[in-house]
């Protein structure tokens, strides 16, 4: 068994908690309960024949007045940077999250989720630039969610 701490980062209301909920419990809710502090969940999975146990830290999202405290980052092997496709500014914000995260964990890896793809009209998908290691996800419709986590683990794996 290999245990890893990973975390989800991004602005508030982008769907971090929902992605974890989808991945860990295969459930979704339309209610919005903003996360305070941090909530930790656990998920076991097998990747390339190796047993993993993820300790997934769901950290409160950044708001215009408050950044995510970097204390939480310590010791994480990787992070999922989450943005909300309906709020372009949350995509722009990801680089800063990545930067702050890497400053604490220079050896860690990141993947990105452009979440809530279910809310985007098909035509506007074309105008969205999707960088490497970025997944179009929907916690609501379960699109690319487990792929997102598994890709991160695969990239963390020794």
């Amino acid at each position, binding site marked *: 068994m290999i245990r890893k701490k990973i975390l989800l980062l991004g602005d508030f209301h982008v769907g971090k908690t929902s992605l974890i909920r989808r991945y860990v419990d295969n459930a979704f809710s339309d209610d919005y309960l903003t996360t305070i502090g941090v909530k930790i969940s656990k998920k076991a999975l097998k990747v390339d024949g190796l047993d993993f146990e993820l300790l997934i830290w769901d950290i409160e999202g950044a708001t215009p007045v408050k950044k995510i405290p970097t204390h939480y980052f*310590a010791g994480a092997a990787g992070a999922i940077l989450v943005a909300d496709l309906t709020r372009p500014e949350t995509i722009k914000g990801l680089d800063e999250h990545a930067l702050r995260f890497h400053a604490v964990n220079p050896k860690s890896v990141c993947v990105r989720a452009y979440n809530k793809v279910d809310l985007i009209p098909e035509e506007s998908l*074309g105008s969205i630039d999707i960088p490497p290691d970025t997944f179009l996800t929907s916690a609501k419709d379960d699109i690319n969610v487990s792929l997102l986590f598994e890709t991160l683990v695969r990239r963390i794996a020794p």
Partner: protein
Amino acid sequence: MIERVNRLEFECYDEEEIRKKLFPLFDTLLLASLEKKGGRTLEILSRSIAEIIARKAQSDPEELGRALQPVISPAIKDEIADNRDQMIDVLYPILGGMIARYVTNAIRELLETIDRKIEERLSFQKIKRKIKARLSGVSETELLLEESFTARILSVFIVQRESGLLIAESNWGDTEIDDPQMVASMASAIKDFINDWIRETREVSEVQLVSYGTSSLYIESAGSVYLIAFLDREPDYEQRERINEFFAKLLKKYQTFFSEFDGDSRAEEIKEIERTINEFIAQINEHVSQGEKAGSPVPVRLVLLILLLLILFPVAYLLYRDYRVYRLEEEIRQKTSLEVKLATEGDHWVVSGTVPDLRHYDELRSLLSRLFPQGYVERLNVPLYVLESLHGKLVDSIRKNKGEVSTLKEDFRHLATETAMDRKATQRIRRQIDRLQKNLDRLRGTLQDYQKRLRREKAKLSRAEKIAKIRSIILEKLGKTFGNDPRYHRKDGSFDFKNGGLFAEGKADPKPQSLAKLKKVFEKYITILLGNPETRPYVRSIEIDGYTDSKGDKETNLRLSAARAEHVKSYLASLPLAKKLGADRILISRGMGSKDPILVEGHEDAEASRRIKIAFHLDDRAILKSLQDSLK
């Protein structure tokens, strides 16, 4: 006293600030503790603590610090070395006072998150009842010091400081924790949460301190881990000593393992460590007679205790290990405004960090030579131009010295021939010449040093340049192979496998006959990327993106495109060449839906749209690392 502490809190919401204010406090405390070394009772100590805090809150803290500085600095050094235990005891009361008020709220918040995880039958109300309000930590500490029963060790944990991952765990008999992994993680989370809380909270709530009844936690924070022993009573001195010794032994033996622990619980060492701990627990508990059995502790309480006591640790930790370093770094920061890192290696100091320009470099060096008269190792990043300018200066000064020596020599010869010169004068001048000559030699030595350093730096730069160009090297090679193929994109090196007739409408598995063409392209592609040692280490992933035509609804398309990519990926990964080159391990698939459909004269070519794209991504980190290595 509470009021005073509150006032202190009002002054600073910032953790850094609090730390800054706390450190001088420690000085004062230590002094008190030193003066009263004979007495064990913390009554006295705590009274002076109150007094000190009071004085502190009123007077100019800087002045106080300055006044105490000369007495305390050397004292601290010895104190830390000799009395680690005592230090904790001294610290406990004020830390309690300063931090406890935040604890209650934080705990409540966190409990809401964790209470599902802990025993259901204990409601929050019941837990709260266990948290007794106290106004001072004194009696607690006294307990620690003066009560002496024989305690039984129930559990020992080793938790990685940074990540909160549990490295090893051993329990005595039927003591057990529901989910030790989660407890360890939450413990490290709560610590962070509180740190943050201290910075944020503005309202002042009741001062409370958690009483932990008869149970006791013994925590050692060392480098990369917490070592935690949970006992059913306060351990007596002898026991504490033994636990200390044991922890020290573990630390010494497994230091590297702990700091490099990457979460892999299969590591041989873990079994070994757990065995060692088990033996130790058995050894300790053997001597505890059955009759003295203490009430069995509740797991919930254990959870809570670990959480609470870990909170107290960052500061104590700082004090133990980094106090001196912290002070020196502070001093350097204040005097030069540079953020340098100090460390000790063996018996010498190592200075690292980045220096922006010549002026700072000069300042820093003169300060460092004052701070470390016995010398230090310099690992500073200095801009090349600074080295060059120092080099220039040296050359100048050597030239000047040279001139001076030769004039003197000339004079000397002159004088010597004039026989009237007396011995004393001759000797004086000779000494002067010798000194100057030595000076000159030294300068020459330094000059050679700088010249060597310059040559090395320049060689590094040219090596680094090659690594930095890795991307254009790959693009050039791909361009040569696919150059005229309209499906190849010169700009980013991706290959858009359109017109391949890969997929039937609505189908996710590719047509077998079209795969042969794809195979050829792919094999060429990975050969260029992975077939040579020059580029191979820097290729991080090869991405297969699946696409659909724009018919159908988006969600179906997203799923379909992901399935297409996945199918193609597993086909490509199964190719023998892919395995041979290790491409199978770095293949990634993504579904892009109907993004970027292929248009021909304004109409979509649906068959062409149903396709996959191949792209490569470089490992920036590996490149950076090679760059750094080449610059070392």
